[in-house]
């Protein structure tokens, strides 16, 4: 049974309205049918978790139809708002492989003999972005003669950058859940609890607490919860956890991920495992000051470049500019929607943040800051989803900003 849309649900999203908005942009761009394959597009339209290779076909009018790997089709049908006739499957059967299923549907079921077909291509920092592969592109072109294929991913990117109230509420809940993970991790680490514990295990403890609080995933595309300790913090970024043991006298960063109704909780928090040196404390204090300054600076009308300048100016006065990575954020949206900020792919470096993007009310980004001193084997990472407001921002994780010394 598909999920019914409930207007009174605080997490309600007007999915039919989203489809109509896409169709309106398709019409403006002369696109007869849109073939979405990126995870972010599937999340945005189906409002369901699509971890397997999936395709969504949006006609000029009417409901879209999603195709997924057959083993997951029933679950997807249960979770999406689309009805059974619009949730289909592909399988290794004659006429049912991905290419045949999608091309037959466009040509025969939708009855479109030719025209402009919008598809999704580009570049990404993480593997499963879901752009149409070269093989899929070639085979679909063969199967759909008469169609002119045009890269049209900016339609969904444009529509998804401003968040609606249901999406914002989902992100608030995802952040509340992430905070539960951090509370559980801290309770485990203190009073010598860190001894003998690996990055992998503390990541799992956080994951369990978040699952119990309502999360369903730690983001499979990011390597789940990310944890780094010791020298591994030196680049100022978390990575998938390893079997390295957490040790006294070393920094520890915990970057926990939750997912609630496709909204992504993402909060990175840092510790110094006692005893900390004065130098470590100095680095830590620099970082918390910089983070607070940036959080206080987010507002509509500012840009990533301006925020980076505010941060770097402060770092210069504190004498720590050599350790600060000059970037403060990455994009965020429903599952699969990460990294790129700005509706159009028109920044100076393709498919990366546009430094001159002007934030608008109800955009959401991850305030993502890095402090890196690889030579000293120390670094910090802060991440927190922030909702852009007219004169400020709301940061969704309420876990207190601090770098405590625990042990």
């Amino acid at each position, binding site marked *: 049974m598909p999920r019914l849309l409930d207007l009174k649900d605080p997490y309600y999203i007007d999915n039919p309205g989203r489809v109509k908005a896409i169709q309106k942009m398709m019409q403006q761009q002369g696109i007869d049918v849109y073939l979405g394959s990126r995870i972010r597009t599937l999340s945005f339209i189906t409002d369901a978790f699509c971890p397997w290779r999936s395709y969504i076909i949006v006609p000029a009018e009417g409901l879209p139809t999603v195709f997924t790997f057959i083993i997951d089709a029933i679950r997807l049908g249960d979770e999406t708002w689309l009805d059974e006739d619009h949730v289909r*499957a592909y399988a290794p059967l004659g006429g049912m492989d991905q290419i045949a299923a999608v091309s037959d549907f466009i040509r025969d079921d939708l009855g479109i003999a030719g025209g402009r077909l919008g598809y999704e291509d580009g570049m990404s920092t993480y593997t499963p972005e879901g752009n149409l592969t070269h093989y899929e592109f070639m085979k679909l072109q063969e199967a759909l003669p008469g169609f002119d294929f045009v890269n049209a991913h900016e339609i969904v990117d444009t529509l998804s950058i401003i968040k609606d109230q249901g999406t914002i509420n989902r992100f608030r809940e995802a952040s509340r859940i992430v905070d539960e993970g951090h509370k559980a991790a801290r309770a485990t680490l203190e009073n010598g609890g860190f001894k003998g514990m690996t990055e992998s295990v503390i990541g799992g403890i956080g994951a369990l607490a978040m699952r119990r609080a309502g999360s369903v995933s730690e983001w499979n595309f990011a390597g789940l919860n990310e944890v780094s300790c010791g020298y591994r913090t030196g680049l100022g970024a978390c990575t998938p956890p390893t079997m390295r043991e957490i040790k006294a006298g070393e920094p520890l960063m915990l970057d926990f991920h939750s997912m609630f109704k496709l909204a992504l909780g993402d909060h990175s928090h840092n510790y110094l495992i006692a005893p900390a040196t004065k130098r470590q404390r100095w680095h830590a204090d620099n970082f918390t000051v910089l983070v607070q300054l940036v959080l206080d600076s987010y507002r509509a009308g500012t840009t990533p470049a301006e925020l980076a300048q505010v941060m770097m100016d402060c770092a210069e006065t504190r004498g720590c500019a050599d350790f600060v990575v000059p970037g403060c954020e990455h994009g965020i949206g429903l599952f699969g929607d990460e990294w790129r900020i700005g509706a159009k792919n028109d920044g100076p470096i393709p498919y990366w943040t546009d430094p001159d993007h002007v934030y608008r009310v109800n955009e959401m980004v991850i305030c993502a800051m890095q402090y890196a001193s690889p030579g000293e084997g120390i670094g910090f990472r802060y991440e927190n989803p922030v909702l852009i407001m007219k004169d400020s921002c709301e940061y969704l994780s309420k876990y207190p900003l601090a770098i405590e010394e625990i042990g």
Partner: protein
Amino acid sequence: MSEKLKYLSQEWAAEALARLKKEIPEEKMNNISTSMTDIYRNCPDGKEHFLYIQADNGVVTRVEVGTGEPPKAEFTITGDYEVFARISRAEISSQRALMTGKLRVRGNMAKALKLASVADRMNKVLSQIPAIY
């Protein structure tokens, strides 16, 4: 019955309907309402034949054979006559024919997943009809 019927003849279709109704109870049909058409290509007479089966609330209500345009069905399975004949003679399973691309399915695969066991039961009944291919 010992008399052999010509495969896909009107007599064969009547026998198929009678057996499907009699031998597969509603609960074994999962109380489904659906329809499917098999399209037979490269038939011995050079024509394209079809076999249409319709079920309503778990009861097979219609079995139709013929040439030309088949009735519109929820699922369509297309393949060579010989492949269907081999399935009916139990020389090859329908699953293997589908997995090797000898048969092509059209329709909502997610729905078809729920019907796989029903189709298998129907195939078994049809394979018991003494037939001349």
